[in-house]
Protein backbone atom coordinates (compact mmCIF):
# COMPACT_ATOMS: atom_id res chain seq x y z
CA UNK A 1 0.00 0.00 0.00
CA UNK A 2 1.11 3.57 -0.56
CA UNK A 3 2.46 5.28 2.58
CA UNK A 4 0.11 7.91 3.87
CA UNK A 5 1.90 11.18 4.67
CA UNK A 6 0.98 12.52 8.08
CA UNK A 7 0.65 16.17 8.90
CA UNK A 8 1.82 18.12 11.90
CA UNK A 9 -0.75 20.76 11.38
CA UNK A 10 -2.24 22.02 14.62
CA UNK A 11 -5.60 22.36 12.93
CA UNK A 12 -5.91 18.71 12.11
CA UNK A 13 -4.04 17.17 14.99
CA UNK A 14 -1.34 14.52 15.08
CA UNK A 15 -1.14 11.40 13.02
CA UNK A 16 -3.80 12.39 10.51
CA UNK A 17 -3.49 12.44 6.73
CA UNK A 18 -4.88 15.74 5.61
CA UNK A 19 -5.16 17.60 2.34
CA UNK A 20 -2.06 19.10 0.78
CA UNK A 21 -2.76 22.45 2.36
CA UNK A 22 -1.26 21.18 5.59
CA UNK A 23 2.07 20.19 4.05
CA UNK A 24 4.42 22.81 2.68
CA UNK A 25 5.98 21.38 -0.47
CA UNK A 26 8.59 22.91 -2.78
CA UNK A 27 5.80 23.71 -5.20
CA UNK A 28 4.54 26.19 -2.65
CA UNK A 29 7.78 27.35 -1.10
CA UNK A 30 9.82 27.99 -4.26
CA UNK A 31 7.14 29.85 -6.17
CA UNK A 32 7.42 33.63 -6.76
CA UNK A 33 5.11 35.52 -4.39
CA UNK A 34 1.58 35.76 -5.74
CA UNK A 35 -0.26 38.10 -3.43
CA UNK A 36 -3.73 37.51 -4.80
CA UNK A 37 -3.38 33.88 -5.79
CA UNK A 38 -5.46 32.57 -2.92
CA UNK A 39 -8.27 35.06 -3.41
CA UNK A 40 -11.27 34.10 -5.55
CA UNK A 41 -11.44 36.01 -8.83
CA UNK A 42 -15.04 36.92 -8.19
CA UNK A 43 -14.02 39.06 -5.24
CA UNK A 44 -16.02 36.93 -2.81
CA UNK A 45 -14.90 36.07 0.69
CA UNK A 46 -11.88 33.83 0.43
CA UNK A 47 -12.07 30.31 1.78
CA UNK A 48 -9.02 28.17 2.29
CA UNK A 49 -7.85 26.96 -1.10
CA UNK A 50 -4.63 25.16 -1.75
CA UNK A 51 -2.71 27.40 -4.18
CA UNK A 52 -1.33 24.39 -6.03
CA UNK A 53 -4.81 23.34 -7.07
CA UNK A 54 -5.34 26.58 -8.97
CA UNK A 55 -2.86 25.35 -11.55
CA UNK A 56 -4.65 22.06 -12.20
CA UNK A 57 -7.86 21.53 -10.26
CA UNK A 58 -8.10 17.85 -11.17
CA UNK A 59 -6.33 15.35 -9.03
CA UNK A 60 -6.20 11.64 -8.72
CA UNK A 61 -7.14 9.89 -5.52
CA UNK A 62 -4.27 10.20 -3.10
CA UNK A 63 -5.83 9.52 0.27
CA UNK A 64 -9.15 8.20 1.50
CA UNK A 65 -11.17 10.55 3.73
CA UNK A 66 -14.18 8.77 5.19
CA UNK A 67 -13.21 5.16 5.67
CA UNK A 68 -14.63 1.87 6.79
CA UNK A 69 -12.41 -0.59 8.59
CA UNK A 70 -12.21 -4.37 8.41
CA UNK A 71 -14.67 -6.79 6.80
CA UNK A 72 -14.60 -10.50 7.57
CA UNK A 73 -16.45 -13.35 5.92
CA UNK A 74 -16.64 -17.13 6.26
CA UNK A 75 -18.23 -20.02 4.43
CA UNK A 76 -20.30 -22.50 6.37
CA UNK A 77 -22.54 -25.44 5.58
CA UNK A 78 -25.55 -23.58 4.24
CA UNK A 79 -23.89 -20.49 2.78
CA UNK A 80 -21.74 -17.53 3.83
CA UNK A 81 -21.59 -14.99 6.66
CA UNK A 82 -20.20 -11.50 6.08
CA UNK A 83 -19.59 -9.25 9.09
CA UNK A 84 -18.36 -5.71 9.67
CA UNK A 85 -19.01 -2.71 11.87
CA UNK A 86 -21.07 0.32 10.90
CA UNK A 87 -18.49 3.07 11.31
CA UNK A 88 -17.47 5.68 8.72
CA UNK A 89 -14.38 7.20 10.26
CA UNK A 90 -12.92 10.58 9.35
CA UNK A 91 -9.29 9.96 10.11
CA UNK A 92 -9.28 9.17 13.81
CA UNK A 93 -12.67 10.71 14.43
CA UNK A 94 -15.52 8.23 14.73
CA UNK A 95 -17.76 10.39 12.69
CA UNK A 96 -20.54 8.38 10.98
CA UNK A 97 -21.79 5.59 13.18
CA UNK A 98 -24.62 4.46 10.97
CA UNK A 99 -23.03 3.50 7.67
CA UNK A 100 -24.11 0.17 6.23
CA UNK A 101 -21.02 -1.22 4.57
CA UNK A 102 -22.76 -4.30 3.21
CA UNK A 103 -24.66 -3.95 -0.06
CA UNK A 104 -27.40 -6.34 -1.11
CA UNK A 105 -26.84 -7.02 -4.81
CA UNK A 106 -29.47 -9.65 -5.60
CA UNK A 107 -31.05 -12.73 -4.07
CA UNK A 108 -27.76 -14.60 -4.24
CA UNK A 109 -25.04 -12.08 -3.52
CA UNK A 110 -23.78 -9.33 -1.20
CA UNK A 111 -20.78 -7.01 -1.48
CA UNK A 112 -19.09 -5.46 1.56
CA UNK A 113 -16.29 -2.91 1.60
CA UNK A 114 -13.62 -1.36 3.74
CA UNK A 115 -11.87 1.83 2.71
CA UNK A 116 -13.24 5.02 1.20
CA UNK A 117 -17.02 5.10 1.69
CA UNK A 118 -17.73 7.41 -1.25
CA UNK A 119 -15.90 5.06 -3.61
CA UNK A 120 -17.98 2.21 -2.25
CA UNK A 121 -21.13 4.20 -2.95
CA UNK A 122 -19.94 4.60 -6.51
CA UNK A 123 -19.37 0.85 -6.75
CA UNK A 124 -22.85 0.13 -5.43
CA UNK A 125 -24.19 2.50 -8.08
CA UNK A 126 -22.46 0.46 -10.77
CA UNK A 127 -23.85 -2.78 -9.35
CA UNK A 128 -27.26 -1.18 -9.14
CA UNK A 129 -27.11 -0.43 -12.86
CA UNK A 130 -26.30 -4.06 -13.61
CA UNK A 131 -29.08 -5.46 -11.45
CA UNK A 132 -31.57 -2.96 -12.84
CA UNK A 133 -30.61 -4.12 -16.31
CA UNK A 134 -31.21 -7.73 -15.29
CA UNK A 135 -34.58 -6.74 -13.86
CA UNK A 136 -35.52 -4.89 -17.02
CA UNK A 137 -34.49 -7.81 -19.23
CA UNK A 138 -36.80 -9.96 -17.15
CA UNK A 139 -35.52 -13.32 -18.35
CA UNK A 140 -35.02 -14.92 -14.95
CA UNK A 141 -31.25 -14.61 -15.14
CA UNK A 142 -29.45 -12.64 -12.44
CA UNK A 143 -25.77 -12.03 -11.80
CA UNK A 144 -24.03 -14.83 -9.94
CA UNK A 145 -21.54 -13.98 -7.16
CA UNK A 146 -18.69 -15.18 -9.34
CA UNK A 147 -19.75 -12.81 -12.13
CA UNK A 148 -20.00 -9.92 -9.67
CA UNK A 149 -16.52 -10.80 -8.44
CA UNK A 150 -15.05 -10.86 -11.96
CA UNK A 151 -16.79 -7.62 -12.89
CA UNK A 152 -15.58 -5.73 -9.83
CA UNK A 153 -12.09 -7.06 -10.34
CA UNK A 154 -12.06 -5.62 -13.87
CA UNK A 155 -13.35 -2.28 -12.57
CA UNK A 156 -10.75 -2.04 -9.81
CA UNK A 157 -7.90 -3.04 -12.07
CA UNK A 158 -8.92 -0.57 -14.74
CA UNK A 159 -9.01 2.28 -12.25
CA UNK A 160 -5.62 1.24 -10.91
CA UNK A 161 -4.24 1.41 -14.43
CA UNK A 162 -5.38 5.02 -14.65
CA UNK A 163 -3.61 5.80 -11.38
CA UNK A 164 -6.97 6.75 -9.95
CA UNK A 165 -7.98 3.81 -7.78
CA UNK A 166 -11.22 3.22 -6.00
CA UNK A 167 -9.81 3.10 -2.50
CA UNK A 168 -11.63 -0.02 -1.31
CA UNK A 169 -11.08 -3.59 -0.25
CA UNK A 170 -14.14 -5.47 -1.39
CA UNK A 171 -15.62 -8.75 -0.23
CA UNK A 172 -18.10 -10.57 -2.48
CA UNK A 173 -20.14 -13.27 -0.78
CA UNK A 174 -22.98 -15.43 -1.99
CA UNK A 175 -24.22 -18.74 -3.22
CA UNK A 176 -23.07 -19.93 -6.64
CA UNK A 177 -24.91 -22.91 -8.15
CA UNK A 178 -25.94 -24.09 -4.72
CA UNK A 179 -22.45 -23.78 -3.26
CA UNK A 180 -21.12 -20.97 -1.04
CA UNK A 181 -18.86 -18.41 -2.75
CA UNK A 182 -16.47 -15.92 -1.17
CA UNK A 183 -14.10 -13.61 -2.97
CA UNK A 184 -11.95 -10.60 -2.20
CA UNK A 185 -10.76 -7.73 -4.40
CA UNK A 186 -8.12 -5.20 -3.39
CA UNK A 187 -7.86 -1.60 -4.54
CA UNK A 188 -5.28 -2.46 -7.18
CA UNK A 189 -7.25 -5.35 -8.61
CA UNK A 190 -5.64 -8.18 -6.64
CA UNK A 191 -8.32 -10.82 -6.20
CA UNK A 192 -8.83 -14.35 -4.96
CA UNK A 193 -11.51 -16.65 -3.65
CA UNK A 194 -11.29 -18.69 -0.48
CA UNK A 195 -13.25 -20.28 2.35
CA UNK A 196 -12.70 -17.24 4.53
CA UNK A 197 -11.71 -13.73 3.48
CA UNK A 198 -10.81 -10.66 5.47
CA UNK A 199 -9.82 -7.07 4.79
CA UNK A 200 -7.97 -4.44 6.76
CA UNK A 201 -7.10 -5.22 10.33
CA UNK A 202 -9.07 -8.43 10.23
CA UNK A 203 -6.29 -9.81 8.03
CA UNK A 204 -4.07 -9.80 11.08
CA UNK A 205 -6.62 -10.27 13.82
CA UNK A 206 -9.40 -12.48 12.52
CA UNK A 207 -7.58 -14.63 10.00
CA UNK A 208 -5.77 -16.73 12.63
CA UNK A 209 -9.12 -17.46 14.26
CA UNK A 210 -10.61 -18.45 10.94
CA UNK A 211 -7.67 -20.63 9.99
CA UNK A 212 -8.03 -22.51 13.22
CA UNK A 213 -11.78 -22.84 13.50
CA UNK A 214 -13.43 -22.33 10.10
CA UNK A 215 -14.62 -25.44 8.28
CA UNK A 216 -16.68 -25.54 5.11
CA UNK A 217 -19.24 -27.79 6.81
CA UNK A 218 -19.69 -25.73 9.98
CA UNK A 219 -23.18 -25.37 11.33
CA UNK A 220 -24.75 -21.94 11.42
CA UNK A 221 -24.41 -21.78 15.20
CA UNK A 222 -20.70 -22.49 15.10
CA UNK A 223 -20.22 -20.04 12.27
CA UNK A 224 -22.01 -17.25 14.12
CA UNK A 225 -20.00 -17.89 17.25
CA UNK A 226 -16.79 -17.71 15.22
CA UNK A 227 -17.94 -14.50 13.54
CA UNK A 228 -18.80 -12.90 16.88
CA UNK A 229 -15.37 -13.79 18.27
CA UNK A 230 -13.68 -12.32 15.20
CA UNK A 231 -15.72 -9.10 15.39
CA UNK A 232 -14.93 -8.84 19.06
CA UNK A 233 -11.20 -9.19 18.51
CA UNK A 234 -11.25 -6.54 15.80
CA UNK A 235 -13.08 -4.14 18.10
CA UNK A 236 -10.66 -4.76 20.95
CA UNK A 237 -7.57 -4.15 18.90
CA UNK A 238 -8.60 -1.73 16.11
CA UNK A 239 -8.55 1.89 17.22
CA UNK A 240 -10.96 3.03 14.56
CA UNK A 241 -13.92 0.73 15.16
CA UNK A 242 -17.11 0.72 17.19
CA UNK A 243 -19.18 -1.85 19.02
CA UNK A 244 -21.97 -1.84 16.47
CA UNK A 245 -21.93 -4.62 13.90
CA UNK A 246 -23.96 -6.04 11.06
CA UNK A 247 -23.81 -9.58 9.75
CA UNK A 248 -25.14 -10.58 6.35
CA UNK A 249 -26.16 -14.16 5.75
CA UNK A 250 -26.57 -15.62 2.27
CA UNK A 251 -27.95 -19.13 2.01
CA UNK A 252 -29.07 -21.39 -0.77
CA UNK A 253 -32.69 -21.50 0.34
CA UNK A 254 -33.07 -18.35 2.37
CA UNK A 255 -31.62 -15.75 0.03
CA UNK A 256 -29.96 -12.73 1.56
CA UNK A 257 -30.63 -11.28 5.00
CA UNK A 258 -28.68 -8.42 6.52
CA UNK A 259 -29.10 -8.17 10.27
CA UNK A 260 -30.04 -5.07 12.20
CA UNK A 261 -27.01 -3.46 13.87
CA UNK A 262 -26.18 -5.11 17.17
CA UNK A 263 -23.57 -4.82 19.91
CA UNK A 264 -21.46 -7.54 21.43
CA UNK A 265 -20.64 -7.84 25.09
CA UNK A 266 -17.12 -6.68 25.80
CA UNK A 267 -14.93 -6.90 28.84
CA UNK A 268 -12.63 -4.07 29.75
CA UNK A 269 -11.84 -5.13 33.27
CA UNK A 270 -8.87 -7.26 32.34
CA UNK A 271 -6.04 -6.36 34.73
CA UNK A 272 -3.66 -5.67 31.87
CA UNK A 273 -6.11 -3.26 30.26
CA UNK A 274 -6.55 -1.42 33.52
CA UNK A 275 -2.87 -1.17 34.33
CA UNK A 276 -1.04 -1.93 31.09
CA UNK A 277 2.42 -1.06 32.31
CA UNK A 278 2.22 -2.72 35.70
CA UNK A 279 4.40 -5.67 34.76
CA UNK A 280 6.37 -3.96 32.03
CA UNK A 281 10.14 -3.98 32.18
CA UNK A 282 11.33 -0.83 33.86
CA UNK A 283 7.95 0.07 35.33
CA UNK A 284 7.58 0.76 39.00
Amino acid sequence: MLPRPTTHSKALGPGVAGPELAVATSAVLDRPPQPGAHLPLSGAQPCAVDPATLADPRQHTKYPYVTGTSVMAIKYKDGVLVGCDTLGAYGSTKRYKNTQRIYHVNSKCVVAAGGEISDFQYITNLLDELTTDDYRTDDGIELTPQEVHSYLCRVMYNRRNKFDPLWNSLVVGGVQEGKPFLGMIGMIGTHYTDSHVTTGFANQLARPLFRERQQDDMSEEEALKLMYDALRVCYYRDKVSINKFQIAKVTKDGGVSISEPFALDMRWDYKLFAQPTKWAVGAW
Partner: protein
Amino acid sequence: MFRNQYDTDVTTWSPQGRLFQVEYAMEAVKQGSCTVGLKSDTHVVLATLKRSQSELSSFQRKVFKIDDHLGIAIAGLTGDGRSLCKYMRNECINHRYVYESSMPVGRLVRLVADKAQVCTQRSWKRPYGVGLLVAGVDSQGPHLYSTCPSGNYYEYKAMAIGSRSQAAKTYLEKHFETFPGANLDELVQHSLRALQASLSEGELTDANCSVAVVGKDLSFTVLEDQAVEPYITALKEDEPMQAEAEAAPEGGEAPEAPPAAEAAAAEGDERREDEGPAPMEAD
Protein backbone atom coordinates in the same frame (compact mmCIF):
# COMPACT_ATOMS: atom_id res chain seq x y z
CA MET B 1 -42.16 -10.81 -56.47
CA PHE B 2 -44.38 -7.93 -57.39
CA ARG B 3 -43.17 -4.38 -57.65
CA ASN B 4 -45.18 -1.49 -56.26
CA GLN B 5 -44.69 2.15 -55.43
CA TYR B 6 -43.97 1.65 -51.73
CA ASP B 7 -40.97 -0.61 -51.93
CA THR B 8 -38.16 1.73 -52.92
CA ASP B 9 -37.14 2.70 -49.43
CA VAL B 10 -36.90 0.74 -46.22
CA THR B 11 -38.34 3.72 -44.36
CA THR B 12 -41.53 3.89 -46.44
CA TRP B 13 -44.68 2.26 -45.16
CA SER B 14 -47.30 0.84 -47.47
CA PRO B 15 -50.95 1.79 -46.94
CA GLN B 16 -51.53 -1.69 -45.53
CA GLY B 17 -48.88 -1.07 -42.88
CA ARG B 18 -46.11 -3.16 -44.43
CA LEU B 19 -42.43 -2.44 -44.96
CA PHE B 20 -41.78 -4.04 -48.30
CA GLN B 21 -38.01 -3.75 -48.22
CA VAL B 22 -37.94 -5.72 -44.99
CA GLU B 23 -40.19 -8.35 -46.52
CA TYR B 24 -37.97 -8.54 -49.57
CA ALA B 25 -35.00 -9.03 -47.27
CA MET B 26 -36.83 -11.97 -45.74
CA GLU B 27 -37.18 -13.38 -49.24
CA ALA B 28 -33.40 -13.48 -49.41
CA VAL B 29 -33.46 -15.80 -46.40
CA LYS B 30 -35.87 -18.07 -48.24
CA GLN B 31 -33.43 -18.28 -51.13
CA GLY B 32 -30.73 -19.71 -48.92
CA SER B 33 -30.40 -23.48 -48.65
CA CYS B 34 -32.35 -25.29 -45.97
CA THR B 35 -31.27 -25.19 -42.34
CA VAL B 36 -32.89 -27.22 -39.59
CA GLY B 37 -32.60 -26.90 -35.81
CA LEU B 38 -34.11 -28.87 -32.96
CA LYS B 39 -33.55 -29.36 -29.28
CA SER B 40 -34.10 -31.89 -26.51
CA ASP B 41 -33.90 -31.41 -22.76
CA THR B 42 -30.14 -31.73 -22.90
CA HIS B 43 -28.85 -30.95 -26.40
CA VAL B 44 -29.44 -28.74 -29.43
CA VAL B 45 -28.72 -29.89 -32.98
CA LEU B 46 -28.38 -27.90 -36.21
CA ALA B 47 -28.34 -29.53 -39.63
CA THR B 48 -27.68 -27.64 -42.86
CA LEU B 49 -27.55 -28.32 -46.55
CA LYS B 50 -24.47 -26.89 -48.19
CA ARG B 51 -24.47 -25.60 -51.74
CA SER B 52 -21.51 -25.33 -54.03
CA GLN B 53 -21.15 -22.82 -56.83
CA SER B 54 -19.95 -25.36 -59.30
CA GLU B 55 -18.36 -28.78 -59.34
CA LEU B 56 -14.97 -27.16 -59.04
CA SER B 57 -15.70 -25.16 -55.91
CA SER B 58 -16.04 -26.16 -52.27
CA PHE B 59 -19.33 -26.15 -50.43
CA GLN B 60 -20.29 -22.91 -48.73
CA ARG B 61 -19.93 -22.95 -44.90
CA LYS B 62 -23.22 -22.48 -43.12
CA VAL B 63 -22.46 -23.33 -39.51
CA PHE B 64 -20.30 -21.11 -37.33
CA LYS B 65 -19.15 -21.60 -33.76
CA ILE B 66 -19.66 -18.44 -31.74
CA ASP B 67 -18.44 -19.66 -28.35
CA ASP B 68 -18.03 -22.95 -26.56
CA HIS B 69 -21.67 -23.00 -25.59
CA LEU B 70 -23.20 -21.35 -28.65
CA GLY B 71 -23.22 -21.50 -32.43
CA ILE B 72 -25.26 -20.46 -35.44
CA ALA B 73 -26.40 -21.71 -38.81
CA ILE B 74 -27.19 -19.14 -41.48
CA ALA B 75 -29.57 -18.99 -44.42
CA GLY B 76 -29.38 -16.14 -46.92
CA LEU B 77 -26.60 -13.72 -47.79
CA THR B 78 -23.41 -15.32 -46.58
CA GLY B 79 -21.57 -12.01 -46.32
CA ASP B 80 -24.19 -10.64 -43.94
CA GLY B 81 -24.05 -13.90 -42.02
CA ARG B 82 -20.31 -13.60 -41.55
CA SER B 83 -20.65 -10.04 -40.36
CA LEU B 84 -23.23 -11.00 -37.72
CA CYS B 85 -21.10 -13.96 -36.75
CA LYS B 86 -18.17 -11.63 -36.06
CA TYR B 87 -20.38 -9.34 -34.01
CA MET B 88 -21.70 -12.25 -31.94
CA ARG B 89 -18.24 -13.63 -31.31
CA ASN B 90 -17.10 -10.21 -30.16
CA GLU B 91 -19.99 -9.81 -27.74
CA CYS B 92 -19.46 -13.28 -26.32
CA ILE B 93 -15.77 -12.82 -25.78
CA ASN B 94 -16.23 -9.39 -24.18
CA HIS B 95 -18.78 -10.89 -21.82
CA ARG B 96 -16.31 -13.60 -20.94
CA TYR B 97 -13.59 -11.06 -20.27
CA VAL B 98 -15.67 -9.05 -17.83
CA TYR B 99 -17.76 -11.76 -16.17
CA GLU B 100 -15.65 -14.89 -16.74
CA SER B 101 -18.80 -16.78 -17.62
CA SER B 102 -20.69 -17.74 -20.76
CA MET B 103 -23.14 -15.23 -22.20
CA PRO B 104 -26.82 -16.15 -21.81
CA VAL B 105 -28.11 -17.21 -25.25
CA GLY B 106 -31.31 -15.17 -25.16
CA ARG B 107 -29.46 -11.96 -24.39
CA LEU B 108 -27.04 -12.41 -27.29
CA VAL B 109 -29.92 -13.13 -29.65
CA ARG B 110 -31.66 -10.00 -28.44
CA LEU B 111 -28.54 -7.96 -29.24
CA VAL B 112 -28.48 -9.39 -32.77
CA ALA B 113 -32.18 -8.73 -33.24
CA ASP B 114 -31.77 -5.14 -32.00
CA LYS B 115 -28.92 -4.70 -34.47
CA ALA B 116 -31.11 -6.01 -37.29
CA GLN B 117 -33.97 -3.76 -36.25
CA VAL B 118 -31.77 -0.66 -36.51
CA CYS B 119 -31.25 -1.44 -40.17
CA THR B 120 -34.98 -1.37 -40.75
CA GLN B 121 -35.33 2.13 -39.40
CA ARG B 122 -32.54 4.09 -41.07
CA SER B 123 -32.87 5.43 -44.59
CA TRP B 124 -29.15 5.04 -45.24
CA LYS B 125 -29.01 1.38 -44.28
CA ARG B 126 -30.42 -1.80 -45.70
CA PRO B 127 -31.77 -4.74 -43.71
CA TYR B 128 -29.53 -7.75 -43.15
CA GLY B 129 -30.34 -10.43 -45.72
CA VAL B 130 -29.70 -13.40 -43.48
CA GLY B 131 -31.69 -15.49 -41.03
CA LEU B 132 -29.92 -17.25 -38.19
CA LEU B 133 -30.70 -20.36 -36.22
CA VAL B 134 -28.91 -19.91 -32.91
CA ALA B 135 -28.23 -23.05 -30.88
CA GLY B 136 -26.83 -22.72 -27.39
CA VAL B 137 -26.84 -23.90 -23.81
CA ASP B 138 -26.77 -21.66 -20.73
CA SER B 139 -27.70 -21.78 -17.06
CA GLN B 140 -31.36 -22.11 -17.97
CA GLY B 141 -30.87 -25.07 -20.29
CA PRO B 142 -30.66 -25.63 -24.05
CA HIS B 143 -32.08 -23.01 -26.42
CA LEU B 144 -32.90 -22.72 -30.09
CA TYR B 145 -33.66 -19.26 -31.47
CA SER B 146 -34.44 -18.03 -34.94
CA THR B 147 -33.70 -14.44 -36.01
CA CYS B 148 -34.71 -12.75 -39.24
CA PRO B 149 -34.00 -9.48 -41.08
CA SER B 150 -37.04 -7.80 -39.58
CA GLY B 151 -35.46 -7.83 -36.13
CA ASN B 152 -37.92 -10.40 -34.84
CA TYR B 153 -36.73 -13.41 -32.92
CA TYR B 154 -38.48 -16.37 -31.39
CA GLU B 155 -37.42 -19.32 -29.33
CA TYR B 156 -38.30 -22.67 -30.84
CA LYS B 157 -38.49 -26.34 -29.97
CA ALA B 158 -37.66 -27.07 -33.60
CA MET B 159 -37.44 -24.85 -36.67
CA ALA B 160 -36.35 -24.84 -40.28
CA ILE B 161 -35.47 -21.87 -42.49
CA GLY B 162 -34.30 -21.50 -46.07
CA SER B 163 -35.58 -22.86 -49.35
CA ARG B 164 -38.18 -25.65 -49.20
CA SER B 165 -38.06 -25.43 -45.43
CA GLN B 166 -41.81 -26.06 -45.26
CA ALA B 167 -41.26 -29.73 -46.00
CA ALA B 168 -38.73 -29.93 -43.18
CA LYS B 169 -41.12 -28.10 -40.86
CA THR B 170 -43.83 -30.60 -41.68
CA TYR B 171 -41.55 -33.41 -40.55
CA LEU B 172 -40.65 -31.52 -37.40
CA GLU B 173 -44.28 -30.81 -36.59
CA LYS B 174 -45.01 -34.49 -36.82
CA HIS B 175 -42.25 -35.55 -34.48
CA PHE B 176 -41.42 -32.67 -32.15
CA GLU B 177 -43.16 -34.23 -29.18
CA THR B 178 -40.53 -36.96 -29.07
CA PHE B 179 -37.58 -34.55 -29.08
CA PRO B 180 -37.38 -33.58 -25.38
CA GLY B 181 -36.54 -37.10 -24.25
CA ALA B 182 -34.44 -38.11 -27.23
CA ASN B 183 -30.73 -38.78 -26.91
CA LEU B 184 -28.14 -37.06 -29.07
CA ASP B 185 -27.97 -39.68 -31.82
CA GLU B 186 -31.73 -39.74 -32.18
CA LEU B 187 -31.81 -35.96 -32.38
CA VAL B 188 -29.22 -35.94 -35.14
CA GLN B 189 -31.18 -38.57 -37.05
CA HIS B 190 -34.33 -36.49 -36.78
CA SER B 191 -32.52 -33.41 -38.02
CA LEU B 192 -31.12 -35.24 -41.02
CA ARG B 193 -34.50 -36.69 -41.90
CA ALA B 194 -36.05 -33.26 -41.69
CA LEU B 195 -33.29 -31.94 -43.92
CA GLN B 196 -33.82 -34.74 -46.35
CA ALA B 197 -37.47 -33.79 -46.63
CA SER B 198 -36.47 -30.47 -48.10
CA LEU B 199 -34.31 -32.01 -50.79
CA SER B 200 -35.93 -31.80 -54.20
CA GLU B 201 -33.33 -33.87 -56.00
CA GLY B 202 -30.15 -35.67 -55.15
CA GLU B 203 -29.58 -36.89 -51.65
CA LEU B 204 -27.67 -36.19 -48.47
CA THR B 205 -23.98 -36.97 -48.69
CA ASP B 206 -21.17 -36.21 -46.30
CA ALA B 207 -20.06 -33.44 -48.65
CA ASN B 208 -23.28 -31.50 -48.92
CA CYS B 209 -24.55 -31.49 -45.37
CA SER B 210 -23.11 -30.45 -42.04
CA VAL B 211 -24.38 -31.01 -38.55
CA ALA B 212 -23.59 -29.14 -35.34
CA VAL B 213 -24.30 -30.29 -31.80
CA VAL B 214 -24.11 -28.59 -28.42
CA GLY B 215 -25.10 -29.72 -24.93
CA LYS B 216 -24.52 -28.95 -21.28
CA ASP B 217 -21.37 -31.04 -21.18
CA LEU B 218 -20.72 -30.91 -24.89
CA SER B 219 -18.94 -27.95 -26.41
CA PHE B 220 -20.36 -26.65 -29.70
CA THR B 221 -18.98 -29.05 -32.30
CA VAL B 222 -19.40 -28.94 -36.07
CA LEU B 223 -19.57 -32.33 -37.74
CA GLU B 224 -18.59 -32.26 -41.39
CA ASP B 225 -17.38 -34.66 -44.03
CA GLN B 226 -16.10 -37.73 -42.23
CA ALA B 227 -17.60 -36.81 -38.92
CA VAL B 228 -21.13 -36.70 -40.31
CA GLU B 229 -20.71 -39.78 -42.48
CA PRO B 230 -21.85 -42.37 -39.89
CA TYR B 231 -25.10 -40.51 -39.38
CA ILE B 232 -25.80 -40.41 -43.10
CA THR B 233 -25.09 -44.11 -43.43
CA ALA B 234 -27.38 -44.87 -40.52
CA LEU B 235 -30.04 -42.72 -42.12
CA LYS B 236 -29.89 -44.65 -45.33
CA GLU B 237 -30.09 -47.97 -43.53
CA ASP B 238 -33.11 -46.68 -41.71
CA GLU B 239 -35.16 -45.80 -44.76
CA PRO B 240 -36.89 -49.13 -45.34
CA MET B 241 -37.91 -49.27 -41.64
CA GLN B 242 -39.11 -45.71 -41.93
CA ALA B 243 -41.31 -46.44 -44.93
CA GLU B 244 -43.06 -49.20 -42.97
CA ALA B 245 -43.60 -46.91 -40.00
CA GLU B 246 -45.14 -44.28 -42.24
CA ALA B 247 -47.44 -46.84 -43.82
CA ALA B 248 -48.86 -47.78 -40.40
CA PRO B 249 -52.05 -45.88 -39.38
CA GLU B 250 -50.47 -44.45 -36.20
CA GLY B 251 -47.69 -42.57 -37.95
CA GLY B 252 -46.40 -41.43 -34.50
CA GLU B 253 -42.78 -41.99 -33.56
CA ALA B 254 -40.10 -42.53 -36.15
CA PRO B 255 -37.86 -45.55 -35.47
CA GLU B 256 -35.43 -44.63 -32.71
CA ALA B 257 -32.02 -46.32 -32.76
CA PRO B 258 -30.74 -47.00 -36.27
CA PRO B 259 -30.79 -50.80 -36.45
CA ALA B 260 -28.05 -52.67 -38.27
CA ALA B 261 -30.56 -54.16 -40.64
CA GLU B 262 -28.34 -56.40 -42.78
CA ALA B 263 -31.30 -58.02 -44.45
CA ALA B 264 -32.72 -54.66 -45.37
CA ALA B 265 -29.39 -53.43 -46.72
CA ALA B 266 -30.01 -54.93 -50.13
CA GLU B 267 -33.43 -53.30 -50.22
CA GLY B 268 -31.80 -50.05 -49.14
CA ASP B 269 -29.43 -50.18 -52.08
CA GLU B 270 -32.31 -50.37 -54.44
CA ARG B 271 -34.06 -47.54 -52.67
CA ARG B 272 -31.00 -45.38 -53.15
CA GLU B 273 -31.72 -45.39 -56.84
CA ASP B 274 -35.06 -43.77 -56.18
CA GLU B 275 -35.66 -40.08 -56.38
CA GLY B 276 -34.51 -38.41 -53.09
CA PRO B 277 -36.66 -38.29 -49.97
CA ALA B 278 -38.86 -40.75 -48.12
CA PRO B 279 -42.48 -41.38 -49.11
CA MET B 280 -43.84 -38.98 -46.48
CA GLU B 281 -42.73 -36.12 -48.75
CA ALA B 282 -45.94 -36.71 -50.63
CA ASP B 283 -47.97 -34.99 -47.90
